[in-house]
């Protein structure tokens, strides 16, 4: 089996896929903790649908690199949603729902009307679920993905304590002079970037899973922000690696395989958390 793995790894597109996959999983699981705790998970979900709509537009316009359209559109929507969400909770919720279903519908409609591809449902399916597309990444994709991921990780490390501050108690943060608005903006933009990156790996329907599962798993067992963040990152990366390797061997769609592994990990962590709780009660 290892020999076979080494054989696969000798192909540069497999190596690229693994590198990009790991980087994306790292970013999304890092920011996932904040997303879950700030109750922004719904924004993440909405954004992934917006990204789908943007991809549809980009492919209709026959752009050579779709990222250059998808990224700004998604970032813009992230900023708008954050604005709406902070004013009134319910309106924000409704707006996300509107935006995400609307983007999904229009995206599919556009692809249907203008598509010249003979395999339309295949195209749509791979945009939604990611399918095998990670193995067909171009060098530009890999470079862009790597650069953006590194930037995201750096932003996260530099703003780690601020992110904790505005996530834990935003009122206190504001009252004591932290620029909560600015950091919320940074969080929203970063999330948008991650979502666009992750589209390549798991497709737009499954992104949320990549973002929230590692965080939720870590929160089952660990009790401090730091340990949850580290555990979430490690879980995210390990699950992505396992998922990608399994998908290469078993020839399964890469996105859903990774998410399946994430779900399994969540089950394991839940069990571990339960046992931990029991042990504490007994002791």
């Amino acid at each position, binding site marked *: 089996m290892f020999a076979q793995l080494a054989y696969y790894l000798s192909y540069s597109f497999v190596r690229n896929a693994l590198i990009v996959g790991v980087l994306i999983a790292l970013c999304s699981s890092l920011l996932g903790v904040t997303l879950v705790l700030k*109750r922004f998970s719904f924004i993440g979900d909405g954004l992934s649908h917006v990204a789908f709509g943007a991809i549809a537009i980009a492919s209709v316009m026959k752009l050579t690199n779709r990222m250059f359209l998808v990224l700004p559109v998604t970032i813009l929507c992230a900023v708008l949603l954050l604005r709406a969400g902070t004013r009134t909770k319910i309106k924000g919720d409704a707006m996300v729902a509107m935006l995400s279903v609307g983007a999904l519908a229009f995206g599919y409609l556009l692809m249907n009307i203008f598509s010249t591809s003979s395999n339309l449902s295949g195209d749509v399916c791979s945009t939604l679920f990611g399918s095998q597309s990670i193995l067909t990444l171009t060098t530009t994709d890999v470079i862009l993905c790597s650069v953006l991921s590194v930037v995201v990780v750096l932003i996260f490390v530099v703003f780690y*304590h601020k992110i904790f501050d505005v996530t*834990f108690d935003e009122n206190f943060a*504001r*009252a*004591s002079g932290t620029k909560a608005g600015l950091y919320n903006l940074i969080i929203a933009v970063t999330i948008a970037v991650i979502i666009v990156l992750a589209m390549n790996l798991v497709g737009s329907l499954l992104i949320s899973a990549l973002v929230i599962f590692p965080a939720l798993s870590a929160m089952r067992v*660990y009790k*401090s*922000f730091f340990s949850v963040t580290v555990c979430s990152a490690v879980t995210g990366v390990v699950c992505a690696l396992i998922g990608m390797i399994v998908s290469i061997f078993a020839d399964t769609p890469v996105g859903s395989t990774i998410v399946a592994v994430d779900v399994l990990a969540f089950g394991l962590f839940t069990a571990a958390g339960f046992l931990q709780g029991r042990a504490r009660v007994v002791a």
Partner: protein
Amino acid sequence: MSQISVQNLTVGYEKDIVLRNLNFAVNAGNYLCIVGENGSGKSTLVKTLLGLIAPMNGYIIFDEDLSRSEIGYLPQQTDIQRDFPASVREVVLSGFQGRMGLRPFYKAEEKQEAEAQMRRMGISDFAKRCYRDLSGGQQQRVLLARALCATKKLLLLDEPVTGLDPAVTQELYELIASLHAEGVTIIMISHDVEAAVKYATHILHIGDITFFGSKKDYLNSQPGRRFLSGKKERGEK
């Protein structure tokens, strides 16, 4: 010069006015208790002082050497989620954020200071525990330690003893009194008039009748007598 002076301040939410034409001043070293019925607007006033909501009218003037970010704040309710993973140490350290600007990491002195505040609040033993797993009284002490990391000048406490048992309440009051004795200005919202009368130097009563003045004047004033006797009657029933 007063640390904070409030002139003709009107506070409220969007179009709903909660309190009109407030005037009062807090000098360095004062212990001001804000009393009033439920819903009279105490928390709203505090949020306005902190800049969390904008004043509808009037002025809040801060002394030159007190910027708004130098107010330590203990909120009435924290809508922190039940399962938020945050250790006590992480919460206390976050008190420094307001003064850090863009600096990303805590300095060694700040870490030491946080340890010192935790020791003083008697929470060093839980430093690594999850904030959410602590009792109400322990949580309040964690938040107090955080507020003390934010400032040494002025503490704003919104009903810090709500839900605490009498012994713990007493402990917390003594802690606050000892901070006051060290020169920290205290502004505290309280329903506990007896404590207000015992510890405060000044009283701001808000509601139908507004009163601001020293504790002695308050005890002799009409709203003061009514509020005190009202509380007693209810207490006896």
